[in-house]
């Protein structure tokens, strides 16, 4: 029976093409809104997580078990004996999802230039390895990255402004050392960066790992962290699981952690966005259901005589109901086709070439992640399917009342125009 009802439904929609087009258009716009809005939301989350983990922290970090949360200077990997840093970096980088790994040492102290002094966090980096892990290494504005073994600093634009220095200037660095002394030395500002992360730009200075170890009176084998880059941040948890087993034997006392454990606020934001997707889909299609129901009621009311005729010649109320539902299904097919035509070009365009919105707003940070002023869209495959299901559900739900009423018409009275 579906063949004829499909055909009849299609022809009935064609009786008032403008009205059908507007109704289908409404559903199509609803579909497009759901898919594009969730795509944008996911783009924002991806941007937040991508930048939040990619700019500095990495998607996975390995520390000594007791290092977090206090971050004691003494809690280096391998304890006081230190570790074979190259071997550990190699073991981490051997994971199939890890594209690069680099060692780090953390410290804190003061940076002075002339009359200006600032408190700063120091990150000791391997200048050869770090650029493959942290995107911030590509954010230089002036000068260059510090060179291995050199007393050089790489500082943020805000710190440079407050110290009134730029690349090539000399600053004094003072840092408490691991042996209880106060390390201090002259450093040259090798370069200035701008990450877009306000705190980092104002208070973090990158120093070659060996230079910082020397300042803090730590031997070359002592580092606080090995940071790793993983192309898809959502692979990091699985990498953590693998590394937990693999590092346990050769590097006892180490603790790998994926970004979702050391930046849980990002996970919460992602979960918040995910719940918002449901709100969007429900709100959009609840709005649509009333519009479609109104149209279907009008369309069936105009055809009361036809339904009465169908009943008179032996069509059961159930078949009438199914025929109207079929019509709604045809409307759903038309709407989804329109919706796809409307949605996918925008989705592909914005995914591949996110429009620059810097004329409207600048960078901002969310949960520690930098959001660039672009309309980045990530494909939301399950929302494309769910949106289609919701579209059909809306069309069918909107048809239930008109269909029920059409099947309950009194044929004699209706044919008589009463």
């Amino acid at each position, binding site marked *: 029976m579906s063949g004829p009802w499909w055909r009849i439904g299609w022809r009935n929609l064609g009786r008032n093409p403008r009205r059908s087009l507007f109704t289908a258009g409404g559903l199509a716009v609803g579909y497009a809104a759901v898919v594009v809005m969730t795509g944008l939301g996911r783009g924002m989350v991806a941007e937040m997580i991508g930048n939040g983990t990619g700019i500095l922290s990495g998607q996975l970090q390995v520390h000594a078990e007791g290092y977090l949360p206090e971050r004691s200077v003494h809690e280096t990997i391998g304890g006081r004996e230190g570790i074979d840093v190259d071997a550990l970096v190699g073991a981490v980088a051997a994971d199939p999802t890890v594209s690069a790994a680099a060692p780090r040492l953390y410290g804190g102290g003061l940076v002075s230039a002339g009359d200006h002094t600032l408190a700063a966090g120091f990150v000791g980096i391997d200048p050869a390895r770090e650029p493959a892990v942290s995107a911030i290494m590509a954010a230089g504005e002036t000068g260059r990255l510090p060179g291995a073994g050199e007393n050089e600093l790489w500082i943020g634009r805000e710190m440079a402004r407050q110290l009134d220095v730029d690349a090539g200037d000399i600053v004094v660095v003072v840092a408490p050392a691991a042996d209880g002394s106060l390390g201090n030395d002259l450093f040259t500002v090798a370069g200035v960066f701008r990450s877009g992360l306000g705190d980092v730009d104002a208070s973090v200075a990158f120093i070659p790992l060996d230079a910082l170890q020397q300042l803090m009176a730590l031997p070359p084998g002592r580092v606080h962290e090995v940071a790793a880059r993983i192309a898809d941040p959502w692979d990091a948890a699985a990498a953590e699981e693998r590394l937990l087993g693999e590092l346990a034997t050769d590097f006892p006392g180490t603790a790998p952690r994926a970004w979702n454990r050391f930046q849980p606020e990002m996970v919460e934001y992602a979960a918040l966005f995910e719940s918002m997707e449901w709100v969007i889909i429900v709100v959009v299609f609840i709005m649509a259901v009333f519009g479609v129901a109104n149209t279907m009621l009008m369309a069936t009311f105009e055809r009361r005589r036809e339904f009465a005729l169908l009943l*008179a010649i032996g069509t*059961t109320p159930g078949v009438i109901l199914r025929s109207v539902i079929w019509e709604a299904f045809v409307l759903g097919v038309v709407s989804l086709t329109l919706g796809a035509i409307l949605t996918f070009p925008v989705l592909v365009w914005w995914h591949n070439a996110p429009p620059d919105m810097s004329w409207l707003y600048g960078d901002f940070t969310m949960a520690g992640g930098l959001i660039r002023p672009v309309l980045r869209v990530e494909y939301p495959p399950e929302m494309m399917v769910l949106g289609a299901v919701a579209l059909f559900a809306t069309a069918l739900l909107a048809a239930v009342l008109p269909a029920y009423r059409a099947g309950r018409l009194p044929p004699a009275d209706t044919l008589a125009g009463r």
Partner: protein
Amino acid sequence: MTHEPTAVTTAAPAVRTKGLWKIFEHDGIVVEAVRDVDLTIERGDFVVLAGPSGSGKTTLLNMIGGLSRPSRGRIEVDGRDITDLTESRLARWRLDRVGFVFQAYNLLPVLTALENAEFTMLLRGIPPEERRSRVEELFAEIGMEGLEGRRPGKLSGGQQQRVAIARAVVGEPALVLADEPTANLDSKTSDGLIDLMSRFNRELGTTFIFATHDTELMRRARRFIRLVDGRVVEDERRDAPA
């Protein structure tokens, strides 16, 4: 689609009504449209219900066809009491046993002439090839060949009514009920349609009951029943064939 077999008593008349009443009430005004009608119509008859407007012809016809329920009394069609059937069972019974022809043609505008004519067979689950061949055969008989693919809007009034008659008889029902089938047609077209229905009556043995003001149709009826104010005031059997 499955259908409940219609219980038919072969000796039973086509239609039998007992103490049939139809009372309408609207805004406190009570109208007795059909009053205590006892009627027996034999199989294969060609019957006209006549009477002035408001005499209850259409109401009686609708009750016989199961389109409207009696306020009191009982109706048997083809030996089956249809008075208390549910809407769904009534619809299926109509599909199997009754054909309708209306004054306003009442074809579905989105279907072609052929699709309109075959529609009841479609509902009965008859395969497409059989439907098509039966309709084409019938269309050839009623002078509609070549017009199968036209929608009602592209057919004349007479052609539309032919399609409606084809739809009514193509399933070979026991009973065809026609309410003013010639009212909107010129006399020549009207005569042609009466001839057509008369021929189906003779050749297929289908019982025809008309509600009409058409004097030619009244003249051709083998039984003439006049209603006034909902009551049968004249019931005349004629020997002349339809």
